[in-house]
């Protein structure tokens, strides 16, 4: 993922050129609408720069999802569902965000096994059925 940052400059150049190219080619009708998001955040600062950052974030998150075993045919739809803020949060911190998936039963089982082992080793004495021979 970090490797991608090295490509930031050339990729940014590419994006700028293609944005300019397309905006010269087709004067799209709604290119000039102020989005609701921009109004709510009262910031339309350098939308082009934000678009480039979003493209980089998107590529990072794509790799991260693939790395975490998401079915490649599902990745695109999952990326599309994310806002720019969410993409950025994932791109910068996905490894540290909690991925909740606990099965409380297997958690209890885990604790049980840990205590059982410590009982057997003699560090704890939680279960009466763990007998230690008197020395």
């Amino acid at each position, binding site marked *: 993922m970090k490797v991608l940052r090295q490509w930031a400059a050339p990729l940014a150049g590419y994006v700028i050129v293609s944005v300019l190219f397309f905006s010269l080619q087709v004067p799209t009708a*709604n290119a*000039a609408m102020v989005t609701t998001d921009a*109004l709510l*955040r009262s*910031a*339309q600062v350098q939308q082009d720069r934000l678009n480039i950052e979003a493209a980089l974030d998107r590529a990072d998150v794509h790799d991260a999802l693939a790395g*975490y*075993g998401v079915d490649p045919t599902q990745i695109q739809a999952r990326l599309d569902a994310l806002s720019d803020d969410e993409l950025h949060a994932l791109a910068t911190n996905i490894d540290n965000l*909690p991925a909740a*998936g606990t099965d409380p039963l297997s958690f209890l089982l885990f604790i049980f096994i840990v205590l059982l082992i410590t009982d057997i080793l003699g560090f704890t004495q939680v279960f009466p059925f763990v007998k230690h021979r008197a020395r």
Partner: protein
Amino acid sequence: MRNSVAAALILVQAALAGCASVPTVRIDDVAVPRSHEITDVAFFPQEDYQCGPASLAEVLSHAGVDVQPEQLVSEVFLPERKGSLQIEMVAAARRHERIPYVLERNRETVIREIAAGHPVLVLQNLGLGWLPVWHYAVVVGYDLDRQEFVLRSGRESRLATEFSVFERTWQRADHWAMVSLAPDRLPATAVEQNFLITVAAVERLGKPGVAARAYMAALEKWPESIGARFGLANASYASGNLAAAEENYREILRADADNAAVWNNLAQVLADQHRWTEAETAAQTAVGLGGDVAPTSRQTLMEIQRNAAQASSPQASP
């Protein structure tokens, strides 16, 4: 926070002493019943590690989505992490055309949402700070007298958990909680700006019809909200309903005549209808007002002038 609930309880008990009226209590200055349980929330017993899809399916199906946890696995589960991220839980609700709303981080909001009939999806850390055991569950009920919440959790369809125990596991997950409601329903504790931002994300996802319904719900609660009306106008425009878009932009301008963003978008809507003179006047007004949107306004004006010129040139006229 725990204390404020207790304080509220004592106050109300004092006020009602000897009086057998409706058992309610005031929380954040809103009257709620002393206990409430949303019994019609489906229960999907969780498969291994999949508390995310199961909890999300419970919340979404209560909001009218026909969905099973298995379908949500491909939307929120990360196989290698054996779990689901909060951000993807939020995003998945949008994919199913519900409005995800992350609540203010205190117990009172959870109680108020449940009192309003909205099940609350929460993140808990059942383990310890250094040995985290992350878990999603759905709060479906509370009882202020017994001081407990009722949850759909893992393989438990009705897990009663004391406020104090819940608080510890919830606090370790930074008090994260969300509701996901049908677009025409507002969370009981919705804060205007936060709600509109989450609706704007639905709008951007290419679901303008869904977003429009949510903006209308917001306008019912906050009739003066410029953000909600602007969103409604933009969503109408995206759905191709130019008349509704124009009407709503003009409605905002009646109250806020110096809003450059609104003039800019109005200009675009007029241009789309080939009303070049009006469009150019609106765009010029936007440019004159300047502000953050000035670059966009200048672009709009330029395009309108160019297209208007083309439309009036001999080759282009019919």
